[in-house]
Structures are given as C-alpha cells and as structure tokens.
C-alpha cells in the first residue's frame, strides 16, 4: 500500500510541473499588452517601456517561466497587476468561498444523488426508476447558468424570498452559518448541485443494479438474508466507485464554478478568474488557474489512494 502511494505521488510531480508550464504558456499566448490594467492607452511609449522593464515582461519567456516557477515553489505567485495585492492570498481567499459553496452543493447533490440512485437501482425498470432517472438526466443536461437565472427569476424577482446575488449581507468576510447568511447560499448551492446530483444518481443506480443482478445476491437471498442485509451488501460494494465519482465531482465543482459564481456574483475562485480574464491580469490569471488545477490534481490523487485503500484490487497500474 505504501509503495503504491509513493508511486502515485512520484507520478504526480511531472504532472504538476507540466500543469504549471501549461498555465504559464496559456497566459502568455494572450494577445494584447500584459500591462493594460496599469498602463492607460494614452501612456507614452517611454512610460510603457519603463513599466514593462519594471514588471520584468521584457525578459525572454523561458527566463520569466523559470523565475515564476522558482518563486511559486516558495509560495510566492507574484502580485496582481491591477491591484498590487499578492496573488496567493487573493486566490486562497476566493477559494475558501468556493469551498463553502462546493461543500454546500456537495451535501445537497450527493445526498440526493445517492438516494435517487439507490431507489432507482432497487426498483429498476419501474415508474419510480423512470422518475429518478429523468431527474438525473435533467441534472446533467441542464445549462446550470441558465438554471441559476431561472431560480433567480422565480425566487428573487417574482417571489422576493431569497437574495439574487452576493455572499452574505456584509460580504463573505463575516460569513456565518446562520439564516441571514445561508439564504445567500441557497440558490447558488442548489444550482451547483444539479450536475453532481445527476451523475451520482446515474452511477449509484448502475452500481446498485449491477450488484443486485449478481449471483451472490441471489445466493444471499436464498440463504434467507433479510433485505437490510442485502442492502448493506450493496452499499459496501458500491462505495469505492461511488466515492471516486463523488471525489471527482467535488474537484469539478471547485474548478468549474466560474459560470455559477458569475451568475450569483459569488466572490469565489471562478469570479476571480473571470475578473482576471477581463482585466487581463496575467499574474492573477496564472495563479488562479494554477491553484485550481493543483487542487484538482491532488484531489484526484486522494481519490486514487482512498479507492485503493478500500478496494485493493485497484492497485494494478
């Protein structure tokens, strides 16, 4: 087991470096002046050249990459061009808000997904199954940014029950788990939860159906095991795959929150990414993409290891 973990960790290192390279290159193929945020269109050419040198954008790309990577290893992702604030602190603050949203969405989505999936798998090919799978299909097919908009129309515009945007009455700074704050979380969390809900439902349904149709379940039933026993069996056998799928979904929620955060002005990593893109703030853009991608890589690693711990057969590769 330890050897497997070590192997997986070693395998992650080149990925991490390549991911950093991709982040760096992605941002540097960007057309336009990297200093557009601090350099007005009316600035003189001398001023432009002077600033470019001050920010180090006049150096060759490999040198810039080397310096950036070196500093990144020391936990310094540079300062945002537009605001001058350190990128790392900025990204981590935003990520913590995204985590709040993702966790809330995961609680809703995974609970619903497991429930619907079990029911559908148990009552396969009945109308109950049909209803549950319809929910699941709708969940994975709905453009969630549109769903968010529709929820805002219904619950904020028409009914005036819930706030349309923002992360709490006083911003995310004073976040608390009380209703005054939670009501800001309800709509974005529901919106974020529909995709994981759909995917978890489908996965759990398939797993449950498969396990129930296997011979040993028949044998157990023949032995007179009660349904609760069968059920426990299903859970035990479905858990590793379901956990892996949920782990990945959590990763997607953390990294792919940009559309929903834009709809709800939720001050998370996606919102930050959006403003970095539109302000053409290269250090911030690089930093945000890098941190989000790294989160995803490590979450994948954890999922792999956890899966291997639960089910030793997986340690093949």
């Amino acid at each position: 087991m330890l050897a497997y973990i070590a192997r997986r960790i070693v395998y992650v290192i080149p990925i991490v470096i390549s991911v950093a390279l991709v982040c760096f290159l992605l941002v540097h193929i960007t057309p336009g002046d990297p200093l557009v945020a601090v350099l007005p269109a009316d600035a003189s050419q001398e001023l432009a050249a002077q600033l470019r040198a001050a920010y180090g954008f006049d150096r060759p790309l490999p040198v810039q990459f080397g310096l950036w990577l070196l500093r990144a290893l020391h936990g310094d992702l540079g300062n945002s061009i537009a605001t001058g604030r350190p990128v790392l602190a900025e990204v981590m603050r935003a990520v913590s808000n995204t985590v709040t949203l993702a966790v809330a969405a995961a609680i809703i989505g995974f609970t619903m997904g497991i429930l619907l999936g079990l029911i559908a798998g148990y009552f396969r090919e009945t109308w109950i199954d049909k209803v549950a799978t319809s929910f699941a299909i709708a969940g994975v097919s709905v453009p969630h940014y549109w769903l968010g908009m529709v929820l805002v129309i219904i619950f904020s515009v028409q009914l005036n029950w819930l706030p349309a945007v923002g992360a709490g009455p006083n911003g995310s700074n004073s976040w608390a788990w009380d209703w005054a704050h939670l009501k800001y979380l309800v709509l974005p969390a529901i919106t974020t939860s529909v995709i994981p809900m759909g995917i978890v439902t489908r996965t759990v349904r398939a797993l449950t159906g498969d396990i129930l149709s296997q011979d040993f379940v028949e044998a157990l039933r023949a032995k007179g095991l009660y349904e609760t026993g069968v059920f426990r069996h299903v859970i035990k056998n479905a858990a590793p795959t379901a956990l892996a799928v949920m782990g990945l979904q959590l990763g997607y929620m953390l990294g792919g929150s940009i559309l929903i955060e834009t709809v709800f002005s939720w001050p998370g990593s996606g919102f930050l990414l959006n403003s970095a893109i539109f302000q053409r703030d290269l250090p911030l853009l690089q930093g945000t993409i890098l941190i989000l991608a790294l989160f995803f890589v490590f979450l994948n690693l954890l999922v792999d290891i956890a899966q291997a711990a639960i089910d030793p057969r997986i340690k093949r590769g």
Partner: protein
Amino acid sequence: MSELPLSATADAALQAAPATKARGYWATVGRRITRDKVSMACALVLLLIFLSAVLAPWLGLEDPYKGSMIRRLRHIGTAGYPLGTDELGRDMLARLIYGGRLSLVIGILPVILAFCIGTSLGLVAGYVGGKLNTAIMRTIDVFYAFPSVLLAIAISGALGAGILNSIVSLTVVFVPQITRVAESVTTGVRNMDFVEAARASGAGPFTIMRVHILGNVLGAIFVYATSLISVSMILAAGLSFLGLGTKPPEPEWGLMLNTLRTAIYVNPWVAALPGAMIFAVSICFNLLSDGLRSAMDIRN
C-alpha cells in the same frame, strides 16, 4: 461540467466491441433504437431544430438582426411576435431559430474534431504501445489534470473572444477525454484473439489497425463522443454567456442569454428562452446517446 464516470463508459464500450464481428450487428442496433420511443422522440426534436436552423432563411421569419427601439422586450404572445422581442426589439422566434445555426455548430463541431483527433491519437497509442503510448498518454494526462470548464475558459480567456477560439478551446478540452477512451478500448481489443489471428496470418499493422481495430473500437468511441455533445453544447453556450465566445450581434443562444440577462426584471420569461433551447438540445442528445448505448449493449 458533467463528466461521465469514464471507466464505466469504457468498460461498457469494451464489452460491446467484440460483438461488431457479428454480421448484421449494426442492423440489430438500428432496429433496437428505432423501437425505443424516447430515443425516437429526441431524434425527432433534434431533427426539427436542425432543419429549422438550416432552412431558417426560407421560413418567412423576421430579420433576426433588425431591431426597433419602440418594440423592445415585448412579452411572449404579442401579436406578430409569438415569442416576444429581445432587448433591441428583435424578434425572438427568428433569433432562436437562427441562433440554432451557430449554437449547434460551436456545440457539435468541437466534438467531431476531437473525435477525429482523439481517435487517431488513441488508436496509435493503444496499438503501437510502448514509448509512443507513454509519450501520448502522459501529455494527455497533463490536460486531464484540469477540470474541463476551467481548461475551456482558460484557453478561451487567453485566446480572446471569438467563434473560432471557442471551437479550438473546446476541441482541446475533449481530445484528451476521447483519446483516453480510444486508447483503453484499443489496448483491450489489441490483445484479443482475432487480432492475434490476423497478425499471425501476415496482415500488416496498418491493415490490422484499419480493418480490425478501427472497425471494432469505433462504435465504442462513437457512443462516448455522442455523450459529449450535450456537455459541449452547454460549455460552448457557457463561453458565449461569459462573453468569451460568439460576439454580438450574432444570434447564438449563450450570448442571447447573456445580453437578455439585464431584462429579467422587465420580461423574465423572454430572457429565459435561449437557455430553454440549450436545455432541450442538450437533454435530447443525452437521451439519444443513452438509447444508443443500450441498443449497442448486447447484454440486454
């Protein structure tokens, strides 16, 4: 976005693959899918949307670009404007139908491109194996290390707004996914008896790849690719929704959703219409893909 549990798909595909040896397999699949009511209903809806998009100029619609300041944001059901008008007074029905043209192209084209590129890469990696496999698959892994929405937005954000750029970014997102499926299916099939037999009988690698492997794995990859179309539609429209895809004044569902968002206090249901189109197309593709998969699954 909605990432299907990959291993499950690939496994199902693998199990489906050997059956292609049997003659008449595709006929059976065809027969089974035409009997599936849900799939047929979806196919019909998609056909309607496709046809109306293609034939839009001949349907006697209003000019989708021509606005009028005095008839902005009319409600659904206004005489002459069955689906109302948008924020510039342009006919929504015309814009939704014309919007299908771009929306479908930027949603589907990336999957087709990724299908071609990913299948080639996966076939080569899976069949040749060894160092080449390692090289291809490790490169793919790097792109796989990004959540797909993040990758699509990062590339689009870097390249700037534009239809071409968003097609490129989505293709880059889907290539690794298709390559992985193609590689795992090919590796699986390569070691099967009938390929060994062909090799023993002196067939060259290209013949083997073309005749046997391609024939046997393509169906599996195809099913996987169809399941990506719905994701691609949502993502492509999402890019436009963020202002990273299509540029105004082109009618395109994601962009229409974006520009109409300012109208949700005035005319909420007109503002929500373009999203309903994306939803409809996306769910139909998903159901059709499911139908296709179960029709190809011989275990049923």
